[in-house]
């Protein structure tokens, strides 16, 4: 009976809650909708309509032009991201394995030193890193960018695996060691098969970070070796010629699609990476 009396006020507050939540959904979606609508409009259409007006005629000319401009850079981003993600994840897994199950004097201190890398403002290493890449003959190459991303991705990848592995019971590894299994055998036979979730988290985190990187891209590459983010920024912020907003928006969509796709397909791992990346030591 009390619940019956309380019902109207509860449902009223529930309506308010839903209104706020749905309103927020619309606000979060607006930029994406605007990008899509604009990318399929003709330049005249953009001039006469507004952000949310439906295209009078849907045209893919913006996408065609954008793709022609950025496709080389899109490829660069793939050439940079794929090896950098795989290498940094592999090293992170091995590091995490050592730091959790094969500790030695000083390994904890090393972990502490490494953790700081999660907070390192890269501005403090840009110049020395660019001198080093120059010395190695890797300046302005995608290989150089792979190298930089592996180095400065290590802090996070190691953190992910280390924190995942410390929760695995010691007894498991100890038993295997008594049976005479070695360092790599235990890793391959016991640890790796139970690492799938954290591997996913790490791959997705690294993919998003490296694909979306702009700072390293703009500092360590030039011309033909630039990643997509740098190319997009150049396209959008050139002051020469007539602004073609449909091309800009299509290019932005192209730059954003790979990470969006990963997010939609594997959102669970993405969120886990974000919250794990929120550093719990």
């Amino acid at each position, binding site marked *: 009976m009390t619940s019956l009396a309380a019902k109207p006020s509860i449902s009223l507050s529930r309506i308010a809650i839903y209104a706020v939540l749905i309103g927020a959904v619309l606000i979060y979606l607006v*930029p994406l909708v605007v990008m899509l609508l604009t990318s399929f409009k003709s330049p005249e259409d953009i001039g006469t309509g507004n*952000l949310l007006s439906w295209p009078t005629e849907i045209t893919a000319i913006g996408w065609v032009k954008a793709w022609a401009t950025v496709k080389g850079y899109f490829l660069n981003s793939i050439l940079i991201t794929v090896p950098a993600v795989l290498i940094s994840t592999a090293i992170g897994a091995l590091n995490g394995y050592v730091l959790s199950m094969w500790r030695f004097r000083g390994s904890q201190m090393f972990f502490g030193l490494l953790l700081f890398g999660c907070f390192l403002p890269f501005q403090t290493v840009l110049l020395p890193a660019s001198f080093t890449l120059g010395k190695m003959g890797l300046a302005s190459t995608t290989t150089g960018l792979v190298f930089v991303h592996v180095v400065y991705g290590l802090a996070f990848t190691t953190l992910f695996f280390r924190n995942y592995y410390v929760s695995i019971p010691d007894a498991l590894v100890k038993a295997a060691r008594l049976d005479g299994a070695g360092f790599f055998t235990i890793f391959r036979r016991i640890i790796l098969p139970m690492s799938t979730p954290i591997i996913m988290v790490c791959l997705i985190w690294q993919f998003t970070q490296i694909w979306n990187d702009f700072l390293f891209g703009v*500092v360590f590459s030039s011309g033909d070796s630039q990643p997509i983010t740098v190319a997009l920024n150049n396209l*959008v912020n050139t002051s020469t010629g007539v602004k073609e907003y449909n091309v800009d928006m299509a290019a932005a969509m192209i730059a954003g699609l790979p990470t969006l796709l990963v997010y939609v397909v594997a959102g669970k791992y993405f969120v886990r990476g*974000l919250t794990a990346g929120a550093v719990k030591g």
Partner: protein
Amino acid sequence: MSSVAVFSKASPFDALQRWLPKLVLAPSMFIVLVGFYGYILWTFVLSFTNSTFLPSYKFVGLAQYARLFDNDRWWVASKNLAVFGGMFIGISLVVGVLLAVFLDQRIRREGFIRTIYLYPMALSMIVTGTAWKWLLNPGMGLDKLLRDWGWEGFRLDWLIDPDRVVYCLVIAAVWQASGFIMAMFLAGLRGVDQSIIRAAQIDGASMPKIYWKVVLPSLRPVFFSSVMILAHIAIKSFDLVAAMTAGGPGYSSDLPAMFMYSFTFSRGQMGMGSASAILMLGAILAILVPYLYSELRTKRND
């Protein structure tokens, strides 16, 4: 018997096993020592030299820092960081917490709604900046949209207004990061002991009051982590400025990260650029050290 056999055979094997973990970690140790701490030291050294387009090792003491503090643009960038950082952190927290609390009320389609709130976090700041630059375009963006929709007197030209352009950065950054704060708090809320809430309900407390007085205070660690992460994003913000305003109009929307980039790499002021990078590091440490200190202390108290 077999144990003897194993022992004699295992000896070199054991030695290798003892060294393997160290060998595996060695490259990373080298990278961290050189690539992290060595490079920071190197930049620190450069900040005391008169380096311009090329590094030089003629030491000029604190002259670069003095020049930096005399530089109006540095002060604009620092002030912008305070305004941008403060608003970005504050608004993201309010929006994030609010959405998390609302989403925690057994909402239908919660998973879908969460996905929408969080997708901007998957995008590059360059994409975000590009999108919002278009949305905030004076004359063609939201400015025009709301007038078309009947709000005759509506004007939105912050992007070209030196006094308000920083707010444009805030809007875009909040759009990108607030969903992440929502996710962090929602995860925290899911860990809150439901019996506490029920006990408070029995005492006759209203739901808003329970959240404000009981639930949210128990999420202090989440709050501190969120502030930490948001402050870190704010200090490092470079791509968003590059995409949206390039620091303009003039240098009215400059942030320290942008300042560092343009003085170091475009204007050939390596010494002063390094000095600004060191100050950015100082800012990060100023928030990181107390944070880690309190984290460690609470852990010890557990």
